[in-house]
């Protein structure tokens, strides 16, 4: 009990007492000894209560850097992240727990940052940077900011992941710039589920410095659309009907549209594409039974479903203006995120 009192007293209150001085010296010596023996943990702290795994630690799992979301006045930059981890908790290699998103200037200084707990598996969330809420002057006349966006996902890694065995389908993300007034996306990029490939076992870092990387695969996308717009999702059966041995390679094609909480808001029929044929499904914003954000914008996740084809096939996802029929946004298929700096 006495020790506890000394431990929590401010140092100024202890001056003038020899006994207490001895106790202080003893405690200081113990503290110094313990500090020198027990190294401090930097960025790693146990979260056994969350994981239940004996060696799990809460660390920065991966860092994803996006080049160049130029942002002008009246616009908002949106980073959308979907948790695509394994639905079975027992099979997960990692457990995303928190996301920190930073907007960086050319010299890497922080312009703005935000963070939030990671959503559950099958859900997505987004982080907004409104140009009008950033006080930096930006470029002359327009106020445009040329930036980097850095997203760091921290959480639990259950074990060392070894290359080849360590391919983890874990997340999907995208960048959009949209107009604050109308809400419609003007530019955007990033499609497909990401995989982490890494070998972070001790002693291997120097053997293959490129071992930790993120690759993207798949054709899914996350994008926002507003009232008066529609989402057009296309796919083509890549087989050429005029070549080969005459066999017909048919391709099933269907699309699902999901909300942030994972609910399916729209689904297409399932159709069969003959070799060489392409087809599109159109989803009107006005058909979605949700009010959405201010301006009616709905952030949606588009999933190519019912695919029975093991080969690559051409596809596209467009935002189409309902009144003119013009494509206002064509989401590029590749590449996805641009630079990835892994952290262990």
């Amino acid at each position: 009990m006495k020790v506890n009192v000394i431990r929590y007293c401010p140092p100024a209150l202890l001056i003038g007492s020899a006994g207490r001085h001895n106790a202080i010296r003893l405690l200081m010596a113990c503290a110094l000894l313990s500090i020198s023996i027990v190294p401090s943990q930097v960025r790693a702290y146990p979260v056994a209560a969350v994981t239940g795994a004996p060696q799990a630690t809460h660390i920065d799992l991966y860092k994803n850097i996006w080049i160049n979301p130029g942002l002008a006045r009246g616009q908002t930059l949106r980073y959308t992240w979907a948790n695509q981890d394994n639905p079975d908790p027992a099979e997960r290699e990692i457990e995303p727990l928190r996301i920190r998103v930073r907007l960086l200037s050319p010299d890497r200084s922080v312009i703005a940052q935000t963070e939030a707990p990671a959503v559950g598996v099958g859900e997505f969330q987004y982080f907004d940077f409104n140009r009008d809420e950033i006080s930096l002057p930006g470029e002359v006349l327009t106020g445009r900011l040329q930036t980097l966006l850095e997203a760091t996902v921290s959480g639990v890694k259950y074990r060392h992941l070894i290359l080849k065995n360590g391919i983890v389908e874990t997340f999907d993300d995208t960048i959009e710039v949209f107009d604050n007034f109308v809400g419609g996306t003007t530019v955007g990029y990033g499609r497909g589920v990401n995989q982490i490939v890494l070998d972070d076992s001790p002693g291997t870092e120097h053997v293959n410095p490129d071992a930790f990387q993120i690759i993207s695969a798949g054709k899914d996308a996350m994008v926002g659309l507003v009232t008066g717009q529609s989402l057009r999702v296309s796919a083509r059966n890549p087989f050429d009907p005029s070549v080969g041995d005459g066999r017909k390679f048919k391709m099933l094609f269907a699309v699902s549209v999901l909300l942030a909480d994972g609910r399916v808001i729209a689904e297409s029929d399932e159709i069969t594409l003959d070799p060489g044929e392409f087809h599109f499904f159109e989803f009107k914003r006005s058909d979605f039974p949700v009010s959405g954000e201010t301006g009616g914008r709905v952030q949606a996740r588009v999933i190519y479903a019912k695919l029975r084809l093991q080969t690559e096939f051409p596809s596209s996802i467009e935002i189409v203006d309902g009144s003119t029929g013009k494509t206002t946004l064509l989401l590029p298929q590749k590449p996805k995120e641009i630079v990835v700096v892994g952290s262990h």
Partner: protein
Amino acid sequence: MKHFIVRIVLIVKLTALALAFCFLQPSIQAQGTPDYIVIFPSVGLAPGQKLRLTLFNPAGDPVRAQAQIHHSGGIIVGMGDGSVRLVRGGTFHSFDLNRSDILASGEEGTGRLQLRASCHIRMAQPWRRIDGLAVSMETIEIVDGTSNTILVGEVIHHPVGGGGNDVLVGGDARDVLMGIVPGQTLRATIFNPPLFDAGDGSRPQDPTANGHVKIFDQSGILLAQSDNAVIQPGDFRSFDFDRDAFSSPGETGTLRQQVRVNPFFEFRSQRLSRVLASFEIVDNRTGKTEVLSGDQCLVFFLGGIPDN
């Protein structure tokens, strides 16, 4: 005395050695310093717009970068102030070019210029690879700073040398699905990369790119086909498909026509590089690109000795 002479001789030898080392060192570094060129898919620039190339060096050693654009007439225009920029690790740099900086009159009616951009990159350290750098290309409205289009590319190193034929047909990036409405033109631009000396003694056998572009509807019916074209190394060629020239009625209300664009260009060469394609939807009235889709950037290893 003998010790003195020996010492003098030793000093002279050491001085000579130091001088030789001073002279030799730059050439050793220069020969080992990788030198690359990154070539972007073609894009058009209309009056009131500017083109912005951005290079991001994620980490490590600095790189030297210089951006250039060419138009179909082959004129080279420096971007930014045309000088070489040092891009330190962890930072990025943007190169700008306003349409008004180019004196060429451009296309009739709109003043649009079809351009090809490239970025010359020199690594600061010998034997460093270019992998990991990222580049982007944007067309920007000068009046308000908003981006009209953006194309982002990871710099992926393509080996140079070795044999092989590359036929541009089909494939994911080459088989584009998009829609156009009256008042818009779909423009496909094919660029045949120039003959870079790979330093391995290999010479291309037939460096021209020969072919055409086809437009299909959903059922695979041919809507339009360009003339055959022969594109010389270093040149690019655009193929326009005006929606108003299609006989198909399109969709009810908007007359929008959903199409599949399929360039077919045969390219035979001893090198592995291929032609580079871009696809744009252009507003006929303003000449501005409203939608841009394109291949990955091409990257060539040049070797050579830096002159900056």
